[in-house]
């Protein structure tokens, strides 16, 4: 129990230096949430076949698409139903994760 307490100030200092500050658990959360999309959109957003690739798309574009699916502004076969299952914060995390992925050719 002593070691984590000693580590804490160092970890806080590191977090303070990083800009923008992103906690490791948020990085994992974004990664975990994005992985729920992989079954159709490919591992890390590198889709095959007729599915839309998400790797490397701009985050705000992904957020806008998901919002349009939610509102019905963008017609869909299935995404209007799936988009409604995620919170705005979760969509923001997912979008940031895919934006940071390198599309594979």
């Amino acid at each position, binding site marked *: 129990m002593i070691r984590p307490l000693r580590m804490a100030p160092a970890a806080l200092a590191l977090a303070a230096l990083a800009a923008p500050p992103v906690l490791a658990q948020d990085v994992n959360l974004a990664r975990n949430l994005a992985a729920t999309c992989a079954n159709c959109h490919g591992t890390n957003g590198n889709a095959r*076949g007729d599915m839309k690739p998400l790797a490397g798309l701009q985050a705000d574009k992904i957020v806008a698409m998901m919002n349009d699916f939610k509102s019905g502004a963008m017609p869909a076969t*299935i995404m209007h*139903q799936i988009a409604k299952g995620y919170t705005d914060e979760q969509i923001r995390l997912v979008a940031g994760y895919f934006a940071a992925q390198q599309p594979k050719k």
Partner: protein
Amino acid sequence: MNPLNDPTRRRLLTAGATLGGLATLGLAGCAATPSGPSIGRVVVVGGGYGGATAARYLKMWGGNVDVTLVERNTSFVSCPISNLVLGGHKQMADITRGYDGLKALGVKVVQGDVTAIDAAGKKVRLASGTELPYDRLVLSPGIDFMLEQVGGLQAALDSGRVAHSWKAGPQTVALRRQLEAMPDGGVYALSIPLAPYRCPPGPYERACMVASYFKQFKPRSKVLVLDANPDVTSKGPLFKKAWNDHYKGIVEYRGNAVLKEVSGTTAKLEFEDVRADVLNVVPPQRAADLAVKAGVVNMNNRWVGVNWMTLESTAVPGIHVLGDSTMSAPAMPKSGHMANQQAKVAAAAIIQLLKGEAVNATPVVMNTCYSFVTARDVVHVASVHQYDAADRTFKTVPGSGGVSAAANQIEGRYALSWADNIWADMLAA
């Protein structure tokens, strides 16, 4: 108590792993294994949608995790899309994939049968005599059948006279051959067990696919659906519309048709005997034998209870169980897609546990099941499940999810792309 939280033990593990790492430095160039000490050993049993995904994501996310995947078959054969093989629209090669992608990632793939699980000693024994020690064990064993519930079914399956074809592979081939050998004018009867069972819409898709084959090649033949459930359990209006639009006079549906006994290819129900030329019985199901062997079947003497934040068994610590064997959360289907999603929750949690870190307290899983109603027209059902901390289970999000407005060919293409993407996701190939 997690022994990995004990600093002394952690240092010992690290030291041992470093020595092991040094010994294999000469091989470092061959595999995609990162350098540095291993954070732990994970054995995964079952190379289907759940197990293969767990192995892949443990490697991809965990880096230096020793991952061993034990699978009894040499290759993966998908249940999803296998109904298209029955309909003659796909071949076995189309639904068969290898494990080379996982091997290239550094997963040790061992072909073998698990004969014993020693949860106290943390090791798995194979039929070959090999023992595999683990820090965390993942079981993704699928389902086995409650054959004792239907008289004569065991013997009928053993003789090959009746096929279940609810595990893809030789059973898929066997049923396809029976359908091909059946004369025009014959009756194919499909018995469906009471829910819950693997792949809720699967039997109704199968009825469509066999009917599509009959319509083209044996138009005087019949598909007789004998459903133990009172009504179609998934996408009911969409399947019924397909039967009416495409297979009128071919498909006949009967609800509350509980199979009591099998005699030859005759299905004996409570009040009548139904003679068939080809009898296909999807038997009542439970968690697979391996789960029984591991002592993790603790729900209704049938399924495995799990902690949904980690997929760890509620009966035996250190054993994580994925997929169809689990006691499903409310409105959670037993599907390959769901097993893949659960595997990612488990992989993330296992890595944190091996590192002595907190696990994700807000996991999400979602499901998409595409069903073919003709060779090209498809209907879907989708759902999103968020973890509910108060009730410690996954719950569907109100207002989300749903089914197709109507069968359509766009989703026919999506369904095949779904298969390509999920197979690549789980097998890294």
